[in-house]
């Protein structure tokens, strides 16, 4: 178990700043995810840790050992590549043996370790197969086995599932998580898929433009996004903005698109402009006469579009000036048709307020 310390590292490619001063303390044994849109510098940062990308400034440490000055083949950081990078001229066993040979592991021990590694990724008995005989998911597992068999200090995964189909992705991510838990190996996982990040990580760093925007546990960054960008990037949300027109006991009242919304208000002055996020699943449908829980707010809206997705239904409501509000409800609410009006209710405590952009 090795902690990873990334200390103010930066890297520019000519005028393009790929990583603009990132500092992270990754705890020994955790699965840490770098999440962000395309081009935000995730891969560059990961490759800095592996030693394939130069640092313009800053330091990287594994435990107490400074490694950014160590050549990549001496870092003992196991990396799984997006395209698996399985050597096509070697069998599965040959691929797994590759790193052991470089470490001069004696023959008998090598055999045992290869077998164990293949068992670990549920590919026992696949040693004699050739890479071209394997499916994408199996290649992915070979890549993992090849990497884990050398017992690296840390595990680096760059979008390891992006070449797989949707169902296999869900299966493999659970497997990777289980494996990581079993081995307790410090892992940096790169992805641009927020669901994947939320599903498997101990902690997530959301990146944008080469910087870390927010750092926290999945629940934390989902519920308490620090910026409109993070809120929007982590799943669908309603991002609204407007001036604070009143203050009530439940919070502040914001006038957005001609509609008054109540939001949690810690120290927002009247007249200030704010943005806030209201998650679709935080909004509920309510019969018009029904009593509201204390503090909740309500608004009238008209159904603009219904999208039935099986387990949940996404509904777009138009309100006031015709602006749209996204709502997600479980199942299919009865008697709801396009054009119908409905009462929407929400708990202001579920909103997240940001300083106006």
């Amino acid at each position, binding site marked *: 178990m090795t902690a990873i310390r990334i200390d103010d590292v930066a890297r520019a490619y000519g005028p393009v700043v790929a990583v603009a001063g990132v500092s992270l303390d990754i705890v020994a044994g955790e699965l840490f995810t770098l999440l962000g849109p395309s081009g935000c510098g995730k891969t560059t940062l990961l490759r800095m840790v592996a030693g394939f990308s130069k640092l313009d400034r800053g330091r990287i440490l594994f435990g107490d050992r400074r490694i950014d000055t160590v050549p*990549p083949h001496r870092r003992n950081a196991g990396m799984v590549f997006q395209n698996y990078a399985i050597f096509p001229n070697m069998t599965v066993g040959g691929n797994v043996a590759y790193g052991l040979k470089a470490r001069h592991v004696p023959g008998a021990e090598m055999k045992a370790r290869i077998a164990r590694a293949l068992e670990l990724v549920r590919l026992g008995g696949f040693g004699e197969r050739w890479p071209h005989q394997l499916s994408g998911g199996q290649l992915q597992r070979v890549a993992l086995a090849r990497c884990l068999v050398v017992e690296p200090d840390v595990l680096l995964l760059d979008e390891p599932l992006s070449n797989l189909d949707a169902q296999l992705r869900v299966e493999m991510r659970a497997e990777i998580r289980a494996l990581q838990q079993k081995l307790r190996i410090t892992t940096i996982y790169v992805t641009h898929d927020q669901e994947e990040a939320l599903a498997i990580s101990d902690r997530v760093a959301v990146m944008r433009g080469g910087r870390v925007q927010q750092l926290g546990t999945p629940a934390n960054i989902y519920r308490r996004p620090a910026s409109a960008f993070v809120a929007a990037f982590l799943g669908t949300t309603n991002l609204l903005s407007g001036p604070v027109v009143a203050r009530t006991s439940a919070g502040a009242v914001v006038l957005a698109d001609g509609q008054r919304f109540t939001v949690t208000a810690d120290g927002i002055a009247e007249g200030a402009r704010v943005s806030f996020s209201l998650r679709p699943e935080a909004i509920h449908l309510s019969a018009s006469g029904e009593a509201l829980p204390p503090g909740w707010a309500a608004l009238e809206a008209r159904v603009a579009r219904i999208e039935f997705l099986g387990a949940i239904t996404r509904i777009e409501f138009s309100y006031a000036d015709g602006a749209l509000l996204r709502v997600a409800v479980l199942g299919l609410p009865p008697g709801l048709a396009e054009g119908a009006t409905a009462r929407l209710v929400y708990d202001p405590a579920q909103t997240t307020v940001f300083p106006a952009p």
Partner: protein
Amino acid sequence: MTSGRARPLFPIGVAVVAFAFLGLFMLYPLWNVFRASILDSAGETFTLANYAKVLSTAFYRAGIFNSLLIGILTTLATIAIGVPLAFCVARMPVPGKPLLLALAALPLVLPSFVGAYAWVLLLGRQGILSQALATVGVPGVSIYGIGGLVLVFTLHTFPYVMLPALAAFKAVDVSIEEAGQNLGASRLRTFQRVTLPVVMPAVLAGGLLVFMETLENFGVPFVLAEDMPILAVQAYKLFVGEAGANPALAGVLGVLLVGCTTVALLLQRFYLARRRFATAARTAPPTLAASRWLRWAAGGYAWGVVLVSLVPFFAIVAVSFMRFKGPVMHLEPSLDNFLNLFSRSQRPLANTIMLATAAAAGAAILGVPIGYVLTRFRSGAAHILDVLAMVPFAVAGTVLGIGLVISFNSGWLVLTGGWLILVLAYLVRKLPFNVRASAAILHQIDPSLEEASINLGVSPLRTFFGLTVPLMAGGIIGGTVLTWVTIASELSSTVVLYSGPWTTLTVVMFQALEGTSAGAASAAATVLILVTIVPLAFVYRLLKRHDVALV
């Protein structure tokens, strides 16, 4: 693949070795040619008199004019023939496409002067065809002169245009083409807007290769130009000196020749660099629906061009198995020509094999690391290498040969009269091809494979030899055989550099041309053709799999 903050030593090391090698055996000889051209006859004081003399002599001016004219006409002719041919292969239903494609690249590797000589056998003064034509009342058809030169050059070099054009036609994004037509654009406009911008740079790049090859080719004009002055031949004659050697004037012609080809090379590089921005279609465009008439026309045209370009080679092989009495051929099968050829000496065949093997191996040893650095590093060293390794393209074999003789016939390093000077000349000349072939092979090997190996604890150097080289092996073998084959039929620098014991097959052929023994010449030609085709047939699959192309 940079490691930490350490400077990558590998590319710098390769650049240093390449620079030392090319500096000594290419730039230094070229410098000496240039020096000879600007010094007086004593070789001491600076003068422009040599240039003045060349430019004021009608005979030399005519040589420059003829060379450029033939170059331009050939370029235009190859485009006129090659582009429709590429279109037929890419988009029309032509029967036997795989075979057609395999044969279509062949004219480039078959020795051009053998082709020229074959045309003489067919359409020369005593040619088989010209005599047949004369008997049916069409006298005076002749392969000699500008028309014949352009014809032979065109049939030799059209693949330079056809192959890139074919790749470009296949890279045209049909969805854009279709979108254009959906929006109501006429077929012609769609072609102008969508197809042409993709194909044009490829065609121009190929055309410039044709121009360079035509300008520097020595063998074809030697056979077909007769008394008409041609730069490459004049430079050779002035240097070898039937009436006393004149390195100064030979130097002037050499400088002019290299100047022209360098301009063409720079233009070519410019277009090649831009070509990367062409659209990359994911699927090859579909074959067009064509009427039966059009199908026949396309098939007939494509096969017609390819067969006509190969016919002379078939013809000369057939002729070599006939009995000759002096220059007169009798329709009587016989092995006499070969017996005569080999009874004189088996040295030339052995020499050719030995020299080509040494040079091809050398080109691979030098070319593969250079190609590796070019594809995998983006440092300053890589850029310098990129330019340096392409320069030999622009250097006519004759001029390089002259430079090597001037540079290494006395002083601290004497190479003239030995075999090494031939190997070095071949090595320099074929290096660009080898570098580009290696780069093409490497482009197909994902860099993350090497990174995975390093990540598993294998140093970059051991990764290169233990993983990259084995992955490249098939392609390297294919590329090296291709190099071997073109070296075996190299004439232009050989003819300047060979010495008695190091006579090659091409020299035997060359000497036979100067004499009148058509039998021996055709036998030598047949051996050369076999030496070219047989190895290629063995590695054809390797070449295709690893995407090693001549152009």
